């Protein structure tokens, strides 16, 4: 942004202020002025959105999403190259030990605040050919801790996965039902407590008993879960954190049979 003309930079700063104040009229007016400068407003907006989400600036993310809508950027492009890109940036920083959970949470809130504004426009594009890969996600029965699971969900969503969120305190049978109903590609289970770890093998045993274990990839995670434990109970992986869960799943689905081959 530093190499932009001074006039453009000033308008961007004014837009930031208007967005923070949630002043919709001023946002519209400034967006028009920005367009009149001849600058590449689409590129500026996408870049701004990714930085604002990374920094967890909820109000400003909403404001710049309004800019994106006003100038007519494809909503899917705004989502992927703006909002989700910002979530991936903070996810990578977290993976490298350069960011903490609160930063992920405020980034996540910022991303969803922008997505809420985009939602009505995205519905018009539902006839797209590409169907996102579905992941059934939840915290196991007896555990009400949501934060870790929600972060995995956010980062999976930011990477284009469709997450069926079962919430927390989820009975083993519910994971199986949801996987079947949604013809899921993966199940992601989490627990923060040693006391509820034993719920995870219950899910894997049910998958075996139902004869659908090979139709799904199974990720297990949470503070007490180790790679050794994942292997012991027959899960595919225990990613180190939310960001690596998304990275692992993206890589793993490349050679995984498609939904139609597995479920039909």
């Amino acid at each position, binding site marked *: 942004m530093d190499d932009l003309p001074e006039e453009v930079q000033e308008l961007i700063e004014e837009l930031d202020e208007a967005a923070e104040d949630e002043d919709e009229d001023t946002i519209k007016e400034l967006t028009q002025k920005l367009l009149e400068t001849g600058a590449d407003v689409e590129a500026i907006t996408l870049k701004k959105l990714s930085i604002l989400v990374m920094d*967890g600036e909820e109000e400003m993310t909403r404001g710049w999403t309004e800019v994106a809508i006003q100038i007519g950027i494809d909503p899917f492009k705004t989502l992927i190259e703006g909002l989700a890109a910002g979530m991936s940036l903070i996810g990578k920083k977290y993976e490298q030990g350069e960011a903490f959970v*609160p930063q992920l949470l405020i980034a996540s809130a910022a991303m969803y605040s922008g997505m809420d504004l985009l939602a009505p426009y995205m519905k018009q594009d539902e006839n797209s050919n590409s169907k996102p890969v579905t992941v059934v996600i939840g915290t196991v029965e007896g555990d*009400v801790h949501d*934060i870790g699971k*929600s972060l995995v969900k956010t980062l999976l969503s930011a990477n284009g996965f469709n997450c069926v969120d079962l919430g927390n305190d989820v009975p083993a049978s519910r994971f199986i039902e949801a996987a079947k109903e949604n013809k899921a590609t993966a199940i992601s289970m989490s627990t923060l407590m040693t*006391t*509820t770890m034993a719920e995870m093998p219950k899910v894997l045993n049910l998958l075996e008993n139902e004869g659908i274990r090979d139709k799904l990839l199974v990720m297990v995670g949470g503070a*007490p879960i180790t790679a050794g434990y994942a292997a012991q109970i027959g899960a595919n992986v225990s990613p180190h954190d939310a960001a690596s869960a998304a990275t692992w799943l993206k890589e793993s689905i490349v050679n995984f049979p498609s939904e139609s081959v597995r479920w039909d």
Partner: protein
Amino acid sequence: MVSEMTSKERVLAMLDRKPVDRVPVMTGSAMVKEYIEKSGSSWPDYHCDAEMMVNTVSLMHTDAGLDNIVLPFGMFIESAALGLEVKMGRIDIQPSVRSFFSKPEEVNYDNFLENKYVKTTLEAIKLSKEKYPDAAITAFLVAPITLTGDLMGAENLSMLSIKCLQKEKQMQKMQDWLSKALEINRIYAEACVEAGADILYYSDASASPNLVMPEFYYQVAVPAEKEIGDFVHHLGCPWELHICGDTVPIIEGMASTGADCLSVEQAVNMKEATKIAGDVPIVGNVTPLLMVEGTEEQIIDETRKGLDSGAKGSMLGCGTPPLSTSDRIRTWVKAAADWSAENL
């Protein structure tokens, strides 16, 4: 060579940084299914029946040989007493808090001490003090940041913890919540000490670097923990501080709260932590799951590793898992005694 001590003398000497006859072995929460059944207690009655509670938790002392008796079983008492929704779990799952307030003004603690779970805890402290005068009677309490998280929701706490460092208005909001938590902490602490608790054990799980940034811990949590800690000292009682996760980045702050000892979990490099904490004793950091499925060799190795690295007492990294077995707990206690015989 220090002459033989009672469990209570041993724990208090360690907290007072004095020599001990053997390192104390201590627990946090102790809702152990085997002991619940052995004592004839029944779920969920043992949460609100002082006699059942004492009969169960005292087995950790009389049967397994631990030096403290810890009451109550879980970190839900304060929230339940404030009217928040609590799911009572099962015999092998601890109760958990399921709701939170939307603003600090909703928090009403006028009748806090009249709540059945609070009353049970206080009665159980009195009863265990009478029945087991040689054990270190320990009240298990929710520390200020974690209680703030219970009041406003843990995710909201985590998000506000970063926003409050950036904006004064958000900091005021944080302090409004925190002051409620501290007031509740004071009421409960005073009642526990009055009931006869030898030690107050504060768990500040939500002050962990897993949930909030170290910068927040130093700027907001340390003053809050110090405030309640000073209050407890003023009542004439020592206190311990437990925080989950890898707490090495905040150990210096934990040591500065005035806590008489710090409890850390298995993710912590004990050698590094004890070096940073200086003369503030650290206890820990045996993996809790070993009490459920660990081999004798694993339990002995982890116990010795912690003590070799400078721990002044052996403790599990978190509460005692409900499915722990008494033979494994006894193996752990023996490992600490054997280490003491060789090294003290």
